[in-house]
Every structure is written in structure tokens, then in C-alpha cells.
């Protein structure tokens, strides 16, 4: 606990040092800027404005592809009176789409994700593989759901509210072709929801990964390929001059520390103070700084 610095307890001098120690902020959204499903967390808009006033660039790194970039921007402007540009938002649908473009991918994509995610891919001109979504009554139905239709050249898994065993089995079958690309988005094992945590998309990605015996390219948090994307995004800014702000010890803090960023944990999301305090010193999930809420950055 000794190395953990509370933002609001920093001396004026320490605050100055802290503010001068970074040029860029990577900031999570759900549980940090706003409560999932709900409105802005009080003073988070002020904090973001204050960061910009200090000349800091802010890029939002979210695992939420359920809300489109357009809706994200609208939420920032309506609830926070903040002008956020499209290129300030990094989310799995976009990073996966960028990746597919970068390798000149052609072919059908079997996409286990929400319609909002799928739209990003189809808007970019990619072709999605057929869906077999109905209720399975017989082995024949199951067989059709798993083996029917044309083969896909890529399998993409992100949050899918209607993810079924049959879809995962179909993904597994497609991925037995070693040429078939395997891409994953949001990969949280658990996600904070209500008073506790619910099973996250990472658990389902793991089922397919273990069945296939090969790892996906993971372009959502805490994927190592997303870390690479972020590092390459601002090649002129050293990692040590980047502050990563998030509410999850695994998807944000551990993820960011692996890149050498400074880290700030806020307690408005899935992590409680006890969770951090129980970590032994030197633990890879220990943040550099702690704040009750993002609003603590409004006064620096």
C-alpha cells in the first residue's frame, strides 16, 4: 500500500510533478467516465476538460463495441459537453477492422458479435458469413448449425449477447483450417455488473481457444496485439509519458503496466479499495496512482 499514491492526497508539489509526468492519457470509458448503462460519473467531464487544458491528449480505450463510435461521441457531447473526435476512440470493432484492412483481408468472416460490431465490418466492405441462429431441436439441426453453409476465412469473437454453443462449435470447426484467421475483441474474463461480476467474453473466447489449440489475435483489452496497436499509435511519445486510466485490475492496470505506461486506478467501476490493498507489493496489477473517481483529476 505504501507505493500507492492517492491523487487527492498528493502535495501541491507532487501534483505538479504528476501533471508534468505525462503527455498522453489512455482512458477507459465504462466505470471510469460513465457508469455502465447510465450517465456520466459526476465531475468526470470536468476532469477530462482539465486534462486538455493542461495540454494532454486523451484517447479513449474501451472494450465496448456495443455502442458505436458515433454513439460514444454523442454521449460525450450530450452528457459531458465534450467534443471528442472519432480518432480519439479505440474499440475492438475498429481495431479488428483496421487489422483486417492492414493485411488486405478478403473472404468471409464468421463474426460472433453484436450487430453494432458487425456493421463496422460491413461498412468497411467486409463480407460476413451466413448465420445459423435458430433453436436447435435435433442432431440434424445441430449438424446444420455447425457444418452448414460456406467456410469462413476468419473467425471474430467479441461480446455476443446471443452467443450459443452451436456458434462456438461452428467457430471451432472453421478454425480447424489452419488458414482461417482467429481474431478476438474484448477479452475480459469477468465484467463488473451490478453489485458483482458476471462472466465476460474472455471466458467464451477461451473455450474456442482451448478447443482449437491456438491463440487468437486479441485486439481488445487485455490482448497483447492491442498493446502493440496502442504502442504504435503514438510512436513519438515514450510509454513512460503515457498515463493509463481504468477501473479493472486485469483489463486496464495489468494490461497497461505490461506496456510500461503509468497507471491510475479509479474506484468507480469493478474494483474496490480492498481488492487493491490486498495485492502484495510488486504485483503486476498494482497501479501507480489511485483515485476515488476520475473527478479527482479535475483539481490538478
Amino acid at each position: 500500500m505504501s507505493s500507492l499514491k492517492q491523487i487527492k492526497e498528493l502535495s501541491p508539489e507532487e501534483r505538479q510533478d504528476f501533471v508534468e509526468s505525462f503527455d498522453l492519457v489512455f482512458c477507459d470509458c465504462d466505470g471510469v467516465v460513465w457508469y455502465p448503462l447510465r450517465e456520466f460519473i459526476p465531475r468526470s467531464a470536468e476532469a477530462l476538460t482539465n486534462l486538455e487544458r493542461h495540454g494532454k491528449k486523451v484517447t479513449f480505450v474501451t472494450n465496448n463495441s456495443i455502442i458505436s463510435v458515433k454513439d460514444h461521441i454523442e454521449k460525450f457531447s450530450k452528457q459531458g459537453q465534450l467534443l471528442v473526435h472519432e480518432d480519439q476512440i479505440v474499440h475492438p470493432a475498429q481495431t479488428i477492422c483496421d487489422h483486417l484492412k492492414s493485411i488486405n483481408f478478403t473472404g468471409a468472416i464468421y463474426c460472433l458479435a453484436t450487430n453494432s460490431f458487425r456493421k463496422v465490418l460491413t461498412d468497411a466492405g467486409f463480407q460476413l458469413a451466413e448465420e445459423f441462429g435458430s433453436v436447435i431441436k435435433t442432431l440434424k439441426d445441430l449438424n446444420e448449425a455447425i457444418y452448414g453453409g460456406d467456410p469462413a476465412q476468419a473467425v471474430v469473437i467479441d461480446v455476443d449477447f446471443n452467443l450459443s454453443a452451436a456458434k462456438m462449435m461452428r467457430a471451432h470447426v472453421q478454425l480447424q483450417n489452419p488458414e482461417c484467421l482467429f481474431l478476438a475483441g474484448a477479452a475480459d474474463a469477468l465484467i463488473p455488473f451490478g453489485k458483482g461480476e458476471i462472466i465476460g467474453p474472455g471466458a467464451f473466447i477461451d473455450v474456442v481457444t482451448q478447443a482449437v489449440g491456438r491463440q487468437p489475435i486479441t485486439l481488445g483489452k487485455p490482448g497483447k496485439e492491442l498493446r502493440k496497436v496502442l504502442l504504435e499509435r503514438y510512436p513519438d511519445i515514450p510509454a513512460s509519458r503515457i498515463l493509463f486510466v481504468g477501473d479493472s485490475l486485469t483489463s486496464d492496470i495489468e494490461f497497461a503496466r505490461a506496456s510500461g505506461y503509468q497507471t491510475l486506478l479509479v474506484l468507480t467501476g469493478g474494483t474496490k479499495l480492498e481488492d487493491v490493498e490486498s495485492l502484495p507489493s510488486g504485483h503486476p496489477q498494482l497501479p501507480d496512482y489511485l483515485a476515488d473517481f476520475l473527478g479527482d483529476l479535475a483539481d490538478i
Partner: protein
Amino acid sequence: MNDSHPQHILHLSEEQQKKFLGSFDRVVSDIDGVIWNMYNTIPGAPEAFVALEKTGKELTFVTNNSVRTVEQAVRHFEKIGMSVRPEQITHPSQNTVDYLRQINFQGLIYIIASPPFKAVLREAGFQLIDGPNEIIDENFQSLAKKIFDQQPVNAVIIDVDFNMSSTKLLRAQLYLRNPECLFMEGATDRFLPIGKGVNIIGPGAFTNILLEASGRKPITVGKPGRELGKLLVEKYKIDQSDRVLMVGDMMAQDIVFGRQCGFQTLLVLSGGCTLEQLRSETDPSHIPDYYADSLADVAQILGQSRKSHF
């Protein structure tokens, strides 16, 4: 018996084969991948069981497949020339009922399983809730409505469900937050062999999600569950476990189960396991005492031993 290398029963000397055949009184056998697979009967398997029965061996069938009812299984056995009584067959749904009765379970059950599995529990008088089976709206509000239902669930039971979904698993995990809520699983298979060399993701992979998210271990009444072993020993009054031969096609289910019960074990390569997989297996609990290409090999040595006797 050889602990490090299983022996192919056809490679045993005539003497050893005779000794092997005389070393057990009861055969506990898996069904799928041993007697039939999804599309056909495994040649020689029915003949092997008929011959085993003729030599006085008791036959018991322990399957992880609750999708097929006991009645359907009995009819299918009949069709391929075997007469098997319902009480010779045990499967996870029946074992679940036996276990719940044993502990005098009362209360509401949230179940993820096939319609035949649920039917067995309902007929036994248990009260079940399940689902959702419908497509849900793609947002967390509608998800929340489906999974936070506040019902007083006292047990979560999971087996094979062709309509397994992420929503069902999320809902199950919420009930399991209550430490009083029982957690039970039937079939444990990570893969389901649906033909030779063709595997689909099995129920064990989904149960594992619940196990990891809840940090709890289920009571397993399918193979290789310890509770199943206890139920079996009690039901068939098995007092000499080393005089039982476990036959199966899956190392992680059948062989592990057989070894755990103290049975002798015979792996057949007519289902979900290949010779390469057997050869590369290093975990002693997964390695059988004997192996055979299929039960036809058992039929063959039984035929030979009869010939040599008479």
C-alpha cells in the same frame, strides 16, 4: 497387467488372454464410441457383449449421454441383438435424481440440459426452471432482465444442452454466488466425438466456465465423477472392485473413472480416442491396463478361448 504400457489384448499370449478373461466378473461399459457411434453399430461389439454375458459376466452400461432416454437405449440395444434391462443402464440424469434423493434435496433447480434430461428430473418430482431460449436484445438492460431473476434457486445443474448459450451460463453463475446453492454437473466431456476423428466442443468446456467464474467445484454424477463411483458401487453392490472391467473409448472419462473406482480398464479405439493420443498420453490416471481396436477384439479372444476349451 502392466502399469506403464497398456497391452493390446490381441497381443497377449493365449495364457494371458485366458487369465484376463477370468479376472473380472462384471463389465462396466460406456455406450457411445464403444457399441455404436452417431451413425452406425461398431462391428463385433454386440457379439462381444452377448459372448461376455454367456460366460457369466454381469453387464452394466454407464453412459454420459442423457440426450437419449433409457427406453430409447433399451430399444436400440434390442435392434442390434442385445437384450438389456433398463436397470443395467445408468446415465447422468438418473444419477442426478439418485443423488438428489440421497441428500433429500428440496427446492428450486436451475437447469441447463436437454429435454430428455429435464423430463427425468420432472418425473421424479423436482421443480425446474430453465432458459432463456429466445434471442435477446443486444444490450445490457435486456441481459440484466434475463439473468437477475431473484428466484430462490437451490441448485444449478448442467449437462448437454444443444441450445447452451452465454446468457444461460451468466444466469447460472449468479445463482452460484449463493454458497448454499448446490452445483452439479452430468457429462464432463471436453469434446463430444460425433464420428471417427470428428469432435465438437463438449459440455465440460462450458461447465468449466462456471467453475472458473464461481471458483466452485461441481458435484459430478457423470464420468469421471467420484459421486458417480459411489452411486454405482451402492446400486450394483460391487464389493470387489478389482473384479470389474471398465470399458470405454475416452481416456479422460472412462479410464480415469475406472481407475478411480479401482476397476481394471480397457480402452477401445473405436470412438473418441486414437492410437496416437493413447501413445502420447503421459498422465498415469488416463492410461488403461489394456486396449483394443474395438470390442470385436474381445469377441475374437472369447471365440478363441471357447474353441480352445471345447
